[in-house]
């Protein structure tokens, strides 16, 4: 009867799973029969809810564990936030489960299979506890518990060992409590022998399987790296090559594109991933790159030492940018050199071009660039700016700031 409802239900679940994969378990509003425990759990475990419903039903028949577990999950699981009118329950399906439960109950009572006695209670409590722990855990944590890399670390082996010991202890205790240990001991011994035999037979196969898995893992990592490289080359290099072809009659633009791409590729290949907002060398390189891109003049950067940025260095970097922009705009130089050296007490940055140079006396008073942006800013921040230039001799700025002592 309810089997007919499965396809559409299942589709709904899969959609839900995709929508909120990895979230905490919630009681589902859509597709629930009672309060949504099974539906929610099925979503979480990616199982068909029918399986879980049957499991709860069976557990209920066996001394009522199912009811307890269901109630516990009901209490401890938040219900799914649902907007709009609550979906109707499929009462006919619910009736089918009830009927099934009653039938199973009758069978178990008649055969006496459900009478667990005292030994049942620890099982029930432990099981429910484990269930609650499991559903309360974060997805990431659960992932770790269920991780497929189990067996690769010592911790995992220890966990497996502890689990096996617990199960064995529980089994012995269970049999002892029932007074059947003596009777079962020979059977247990044979079971252990059989299991050991199977383990021996399967060991080579298992080892091979593990080796295979490791190989596949390596291969996958390699493929991912290759894919990343391909993606990078595609996004940057191929893109630039296309642009170069399109600008083939503009040598300046072609050179700019090629150089900018070269820089990017070098950074990607060789540079340690540096945060340009954090250290001097990375910040200087970024400023040089920006000026190079904006003005199409190559900027050669050499950095010696490095240090974290602070406010004064920030000011020095702004002055550096100003000096670079000035050189790029006015010096008519083929290349600009930047040299930044971080010493224990101070940081010195040189910006040099071999362009036409200028006479500082000729620069009008109201020109902000040199006086305010470079000299003024450096002095306000406790540093100094020295300019060496004369017509035809190129220009060199020397910017110095004391380092803040930690």
């Amino acid at each position, binding site marked *: 009867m309810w089997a007919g409802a499965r396809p559409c239900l299942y589709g709904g679940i899969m959609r839900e799973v995709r929508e909120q994969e990895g979230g905490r378990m919630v009681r589902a509003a859509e597709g629930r029969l009672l309060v949504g425990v099974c539906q929610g759990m099925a979503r979480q475990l990616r199982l068909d809810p029918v399986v879980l419903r049957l499991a709860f039903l069976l557990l209920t028949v066996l001394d009522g564990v199912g009811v307890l577990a269901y109630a516990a999950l009901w209490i401890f699981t938040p219900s799914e936030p649902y907007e709009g009118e609550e979906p109707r329950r499929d009462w006919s399906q619910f009736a089918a489960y009830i009927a099934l439960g009653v039938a199973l109950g009758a069978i178990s009572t008649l055969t006496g299979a459900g009478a667990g006695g005292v030994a049942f209670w620890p099982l029930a409590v432990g099981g429910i506890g484990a269930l609650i722990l499991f559903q309360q855990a974060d997805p990431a944590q659960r992932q770790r518990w269920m991780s497929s890399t189990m067996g690769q670390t010592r911790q995992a082996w220890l966990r497996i060992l502890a689990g096996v010991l617990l199960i064995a202890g529980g089994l012995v205790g269970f049999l002892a409590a029932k007074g059947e240990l003596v009777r079962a001991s020979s059977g247990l011994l044979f079971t252990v022998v059989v299991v050991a035999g199977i383990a021996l037979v399967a060991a080579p196969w298992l080892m091979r399987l593990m080796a295979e898995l490791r190989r596949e893992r390596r291969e996958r990592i390699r493929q991912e790296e290759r894919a990343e490289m391909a993606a990078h080359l595609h996004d940057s290099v191929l893109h630039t090559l296309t642009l170069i072809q399109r600008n083939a009659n503009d040598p300046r633009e072609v050179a700019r594109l090629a150089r900018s791409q070269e820089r990017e590729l070098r950074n990607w*290949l*060789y540079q*340690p991933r540096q945060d340009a907002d954090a250290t001097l060398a990375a910040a200087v390189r970024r400023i040089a790159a920006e000026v190079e891109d904006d003005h199409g003049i190559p900027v*050669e950067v050499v950095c*010696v030492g490095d240090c974290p940025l602070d406010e004064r260095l920030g000011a020095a970097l702004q002055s550096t940018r100003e000096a670079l922009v000035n050189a790029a705009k006015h010096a008519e130089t083929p290349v600009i*050199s930047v*040299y930044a050296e971080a010493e224990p007490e101070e940081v010195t940055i040189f910006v*040099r071009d071999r362009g036409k140079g200028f006479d500082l006396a000729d620069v009008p008073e109201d020109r902000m660039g040199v006086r305010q942006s470079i000299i003024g800013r450096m002095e306000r921040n406790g540093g100094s700016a020295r300019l060496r230039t004369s017509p035809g001799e190129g220009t*060199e700025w020397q910017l110095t700031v004391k380092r803040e002592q930690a």
Partner: protein
Amino acid sequence: MSVRVVIVDDHRLFRSGVRAELGAVVEVVGEAHDVDSAVAAIGELKPDVVLLDVHMPGGGGIEVLRRALSTGSRFLALSVSDAAEDVIGVIRAGARGYVTKNISGSELTDAIVRVAEGDAVFSPRLAGFVLDAFASTEAPPIDPELDSLTQREREVLRLIARGYAYKEIAKELFISVKTVETHVSSVLRKLQLSNRHELSRWATARRLV
């Protein structure tokens, strides 16, 4: 007399490009495209200077240096890479200079002539590396003569790193170009002979361009 040069590079286009750009004082007597052909050509032609690519199939420039350094030719490394490992590695293997491939033809010609005369050629970046490598330690030097730079050598390297040509450095420091060359050669010798393990450790720790 012109300087006889062998170009070793696995890119044919690059070899012909360099050949076309070099000045009249340089005569290209041979080319090689891998380690074996390079060793053979150097042995046979006995060039004054070998322009040596760092990255090549079969062991790269360092392998060529290992097998052909004893021939008496001088080596100038030329590479697109200026990763610290490559730069320091090839210098310590015996090259007398290191320039990057974006160097202009006239600058390259100057560098070749300088190497042919037994001097060292440092690009700004190489100078930066050396300053960094020799500064990045608090440990006392094992051999003070080899393991640290003099104040003057440091000044010269700083000026190279700032983009100064030897002539400009000489003018700046009020010394002769010959003295500048002596300082640079002395730095090169320290770079090649110093056993300071910081040097190689520094180079590997900083896998940068």
